[in-house]
């Protein structure tokens, strides 16, 4: 029970200016839209955001970007939000571009207590500039450092009240990795259930990774992002002793 909160602002009470925040999602798919909305409403700045795309123009993290709250963005594909490039040209944001496999692997490494790893991806390209090159058993690799953050904001499908998580289709993407790589992990879900309702073989994120759970209010639909009312949210907390 102690992990459940009702409102995004409660969930985000530990978020402060200057922090590094991992934000799940591949574009808006699997992005924690309710928590991002909370970030929009919160007075913070100088954030370092680690997220594949920094949302879309004027949607998701794109709104946080437009509020000038992001000092630095680390991701793999900012092309899908041209506002990122515009701010970069104006010198208003620092960017660190990583291949998508490196971005995801660095987050996993951070969560697993590793300092870095040698990968073949990017060898010989402009993205390898300044990175150590090393030949191991005849293959050339570059060294990539792990990524670890203060906060992770993630999206899952269902949580039990202990904090075990399962995901839904391609909304899984970076979320389970980010759940491992931050001091505080905050998750929004479609539904909260009792312990025992999730099959132990199916749980993707075991509860020891999760600090705070919230039911999602901002939902991605085929018609765009829809905001749900309180009643519909409460119906999605099927756990009895909420």
């Amino acid at each position, binding site marked *: 029970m102690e992990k459940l909160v009702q409102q995004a602002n409660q969930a985000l009470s530990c978020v402060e200016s200057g922090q590094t925040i991992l934000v799940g999602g*591949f*574009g808006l*798919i*699997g992005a924690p839209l309710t928590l991002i909305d909370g970030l929009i409403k919160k007075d913070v700045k100088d954030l370092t955001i680690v997220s*594949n795309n920094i949302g879309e123009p004027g949607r998701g993290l794109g709104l946080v970007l437009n509020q000038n709250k992001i000092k630095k963005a680390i991701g*793999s*594909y*900012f*092309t*899908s939000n*041209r506002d*990122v*490039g*515009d701010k*970069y*040209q104006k010198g208003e944001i620092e*960017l660190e*571009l*990583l*291949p*998508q*496999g*490196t*971005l*995801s*692997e660095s*987050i*996993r490494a951070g969560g697993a207590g590793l300092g870095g790893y040698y*990968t*073949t*991806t*990017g*060898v*010989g*390209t*402009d*993205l390898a500039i300044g990175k150590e090159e090393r030949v191991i058993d005849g293959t050339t690799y570059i060294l990539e450092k792990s990524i670890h953050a203060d906060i992770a904001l993630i999206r899952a499908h269902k949580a039990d009240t202990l904090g075990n998580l399962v*995901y*839904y*289709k*391609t*909304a*899984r*993407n*970076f*979320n*389970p*990795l980010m759940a491992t790589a931050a001091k505080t992990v905050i998750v929004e879900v479609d539904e909260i259930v009792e312990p025992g309702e999730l099959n132990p073989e199916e749980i*993707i994120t075991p509860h020891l990774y999760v600090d705070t759970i919230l039911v999602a209010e901002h939902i*991605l*639909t*085929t018609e765009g992002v829809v905001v749900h009312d309180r009643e519909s949210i409460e119906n999605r907390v099927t756990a009895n002793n909420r």
Partner: protein
Amino acid sequence: MTVSLSKIELQQTIAKRVAKELKGSITVNLGVGIPTLVPKFIEDPKVHLHTENGLLGVTDVKEEDPNLVNASKLPVGEAVGASYFDSAGSFGMIRGGHVDMAILGALQADETGQIANWAVPGKNIIGVGGAMDLLVGAKKVIVAMSHASKDGESKIMEKLTYPKTSNRSVDMIITDLAVFEVRERQLYLLELAPGISVEEVQEKTEANFIVDL
């Protein structure tokens, strides 16, 4: 001279020719752009499609689900026997050499078969996605692209002017005009599109290549 095709006809023609390369029990990753048009032309049901955002077993969209998309964030369907995984798992498959083939778009290819598909100097294109991973990891890489740029310049050049995506050469380049194979860092012209002559390909290609029809 050939009749000029509309952009979408041109892309469909390329996608259709790419699909002919996809047969048997193989796993194929489809990149952003023209590659996303390939699935509807694949004839062999044994071909498995992989998308970097975490799905093995992509099919054409049946009922649109906002949380079931491909690497281009377009709605797709789920094949029988499909599986989902996180991004690190997906790129472990790619980088670890478990994906048999990748079909990628490109901005440029050079005469050694290296490609550029992630950055244009001075432009607002700041994104690499999975391109570099697919180039180091996929067993075979096929590039699907229009032969000429919007300005009519050859995209198959002597030397890349945009930053390269990998040291690795691709294995095949399929355009609206021709099919090239790359062997030991040299281009071989294998096939002409209907109604296209060797001379026309030579005229419209900046790179040197060996004719091997």
